[in-house]
């Protein structure tokens, strides 16, 4: 079996022409052979969704993934593929809840509709009563080992939660009192799902960011990994979607969207939007679609209950944080020890990922300030020490000047 570190490297280095799942099979098989894992029973709930995540996962099904699924995920309830209907299928659900309590995984696709107490979305019947998606997800999550939200809808509300959000759609983590692993995207990439599922099986919960997204796939921005990045650096910008050049000015949301689409690409590495001349619309962002639309404009209007706010209008606040962040970051880097270290060891200062939201910016600022203060205190100490040494040096120098014989006399 791979070490966790090797596994992470495998996930993060998307290789052209192959899907991640194909690499995962041997890993899974050896783990099974060594009895290191057992199949995870899965309840897959579809709430306010478009079935896009299930279809996306079907795209990963080649003989090997089917094998992988047959061996790793024991999907008990998923109404798109359950052969039984009605009470028979509800019974499977109830049985799994009882028999596998604390052991099964709950995978949720689609946003939780909370309007009218969830009655905008009813998903099955129990004792002759309709059960809402909201009720079901709260109850089932309680008993689940892991709760995994696939797709932007389940993770953050997604398109269904766009203004004015008629059904009061919410992400799963807003309605349950439990950690939810968010695998966003509209739809989510099959590799992101199979990679996370495999990590859960083999090593437990993967490292997550502040939005509970696995860092395996969402640690860098589209912009950082983009094939058109050089054109951005060189100032070659497309004047319309489909033209050559960086698509930033026609609305690409790559700089504010964390996902590895440019490396991994879609549908078995056939293509991906920016390569095909279509600006990234930020579908893996927690703020999709309101925070990333209009899709063809690079300064988004954000619809709010007070009307549409242009980013220019709210930028004052953000700029303050931005400058604060950058300023502190700069100060952090300028502290002589760090600069010294980088120049001596020949390394470049790490690029920081631009914050996606005010909250993230705040958090980053807080962390930076903390680090900065720590460094400053070290520096102050070292400065004080240096001053002391400096004084000692002067004293010695002075002593040597005043009593040259002392030194030579020996």
């Amino acid at each position, binding site marked *: 079996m791979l070490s966790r570190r090797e596994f992470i490297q495998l996930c993060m280095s998307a290789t052209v022409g192959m899907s991640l799942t194909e690499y995962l099979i041997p890993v899974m098989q050896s783990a099974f052979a060594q009895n290191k894992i057992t199949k995870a029973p899965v309840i897959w709930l*579809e709430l306010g*969704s*478009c*079935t*896009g995540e299930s*279809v*996306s996962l*079907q*795209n990963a*099904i*080649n003989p090997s993934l*089917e094998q992988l699924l047959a061996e790793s995920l*024991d*999907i*008990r309830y998923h*109404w798109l*593929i*359950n*052969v*039984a*209907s*009605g009470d*028979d*299928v509800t019974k*499977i659900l109830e049985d799994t809840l009882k028999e596998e309590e604390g052991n099964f995984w709950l995978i949720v696709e689609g946003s939780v*509709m909370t309007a009218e107490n969830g009655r*905008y*979305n*009813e*998903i*099955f019947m129990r004792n002759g009563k*309709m059960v809402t998606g909201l009720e079901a997800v709260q109850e089932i999550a309680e008993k689940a080992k892991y709760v995994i939200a696939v797709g932007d809808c389940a993770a953050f509300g997604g398109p*269904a939660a766009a*203004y*004015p*959000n*008629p*059904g009061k759609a919410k992400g799963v983590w807003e309605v349950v009192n439990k950690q939810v692993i968010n695998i966003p995207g*509209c*739809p989510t990439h099959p590799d992101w799902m199979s990679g996370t599922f495999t990590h859960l099986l083999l090593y437990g919960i993967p490292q997550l960011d502040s939005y509970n997204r696995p860092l395996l796939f969402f640690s860098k921005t589209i912009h950082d990994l983009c094939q058109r990045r050089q054109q951005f650096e060189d100032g070659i910008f497309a004047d*319309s*979607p*489909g033209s050559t050049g960086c698509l930033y000015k026609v609305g690409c949301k790559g700089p504010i969207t964390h996902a590895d689409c440019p490396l991994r690409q*879609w*549908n*078995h590495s*056939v*293509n*991906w939007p920016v*390569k*095909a*001349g*279509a600006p990234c*619309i930020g*579908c893996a962002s927690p703020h999709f*679609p309101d925070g990333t*639309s*209009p*899709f*063809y404009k690079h300064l988004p209007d954000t619809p709010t209950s007070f009307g549409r706010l242009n980013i220019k209008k709210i930028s004052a606040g953000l700029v303050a944080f931005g400058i604060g962040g950058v300023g502190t970051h700069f100060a952090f880097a300028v502290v002589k020890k760090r600069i010294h270290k980088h120049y001596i060891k020949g390394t470049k200062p790490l690029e920081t990922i631009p914050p996606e939201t005010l909250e993230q910016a705040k958090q980053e600022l807080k962390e930076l300030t903390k680090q900065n203060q720590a460094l400053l205190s070290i520096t102050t100490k070292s400065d004080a020490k240096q001053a002391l040494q400096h004084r000692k040096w002067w004293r010695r120098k002075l002593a040597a000047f005043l009593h040259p014989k002392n030194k030579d006399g020996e």
Partner: protein
Amino acid sequence: MTKKTIFPVSRVHEPLRADVEIENGQVVDATVGATLFRGFENIMIGRDPRDAALLTQRICGICSSAHAIAAALALQEAFHVEPTPNGQHLMNLIFAADIIQNHLRHFYILAIYDYVKGPNMPPYAPRPEGDYRLPQKRNEELLAHSKEGMLKAMRAHEMLAIFGAKIPMQQTILVTGVTERATVDRISAYRSILHELIEWVEQVYLYDVAVVADYYKDYYSIGSTTGNMMSYGMFPQPITGKREYAPGIIVAKGKTEPFDVAKISEDIKYSWYQTDIIPRNPQEGTTTPHRDKKDAYSWIKAPRYAGKAFEGGPLARSWISGEYQRGTGVMDRIITRAQETLSICKLADGWLSQLSLDGPTFSNYTPPMQGEGIGLTDAMRGGLGHWLNIKDGKIVHYQIVTPTTWTFSPRDEQGQRGPVEEALLGTAVENTEDLIEVGRIIRSFDPCFTCAVHMIDAPAGTPSMII
């Protein structure tokens, strides 16, 4: 009399509840309702119209490109722009690939387990009891094909991504065409997958359908409707705009008549929307959900053409073009879907050779501040329409009527049933516990409630347009 509720009906896209009343082994009454409301049309209001193609396809993960095409058509009318010839061909190629994948997935993932016994493990077991008639050998054979069928559907999605960037939710369709280029490597990549699929559809898919149809001959008459069928037509040709599949209407298995968009209206007597606000005019239409409404049982509205319910999809298209007019039962729907897959593959092959290498696939334009447009196309499962209005550069009205609303419509004010409710009536059922027949009928319509469950208002009173 026995009353039986099936909820959820599995192997359909999104939640569906079916209630049937059975007397003397026969269905005497049926209601089918959808139980999800998201309200996409409300979401569209106030947005940049150019976002419509990208945002509306989020309605559905199985037929996303159909929404993109309908939105692009509506915007083209509103903006007074035309697609470039290459752009139109590429849009058609993207859409064709999506229809092919949809038909394959419908048969091999959703419908096949109504007739074939799957392996004895979840999610294939338990299964409804009933008459599985295929001999062991045929059963095994079809089961093996079902695995391959999923792979072929996946290949069709790869074929789509060549020009559509990614799928579900392709991203390259613009108002005047497609952002991806028609280069020689892309065309040959598309062609190679297409030929693989053509061979497979001819040799396996059609064969499998023939096997099932042969063993389940009675299903030619089970699940029949009165034969009201409609199509908006699909695949416009560049420049002329003439559609490869012509629009038309058939009333009660009669002759093909011309289609008139002005005759469409929607009824909400049995839908969970407030009846006191019924401005049926799409320019003013709003929707107020009313979940506690008495007698209502669905989020789906009841669209009517000239006051009557209509069925869409491959069967309707085949009747309208005159290619297949055998009947209107379960097997007829399954057979025409398979035949259509092959004919669309062959059409796509033709378009590939009409592409001009590296020719413009879209044109630049300045979006006007005002405008209105209607985008009508057939999607996989029937007619899909987008109606939109633009003022001051923003969408002020958006409305979508999807195929599943037509086929799965609840009753209207006159008490007329929708096509599926009608198809269920009179069905003989063997076992009131499992109702395998009901599932077979429902699934033969290829229902997709993801699309159907966010209707807004009736398009009666729209400017008349005859296509």
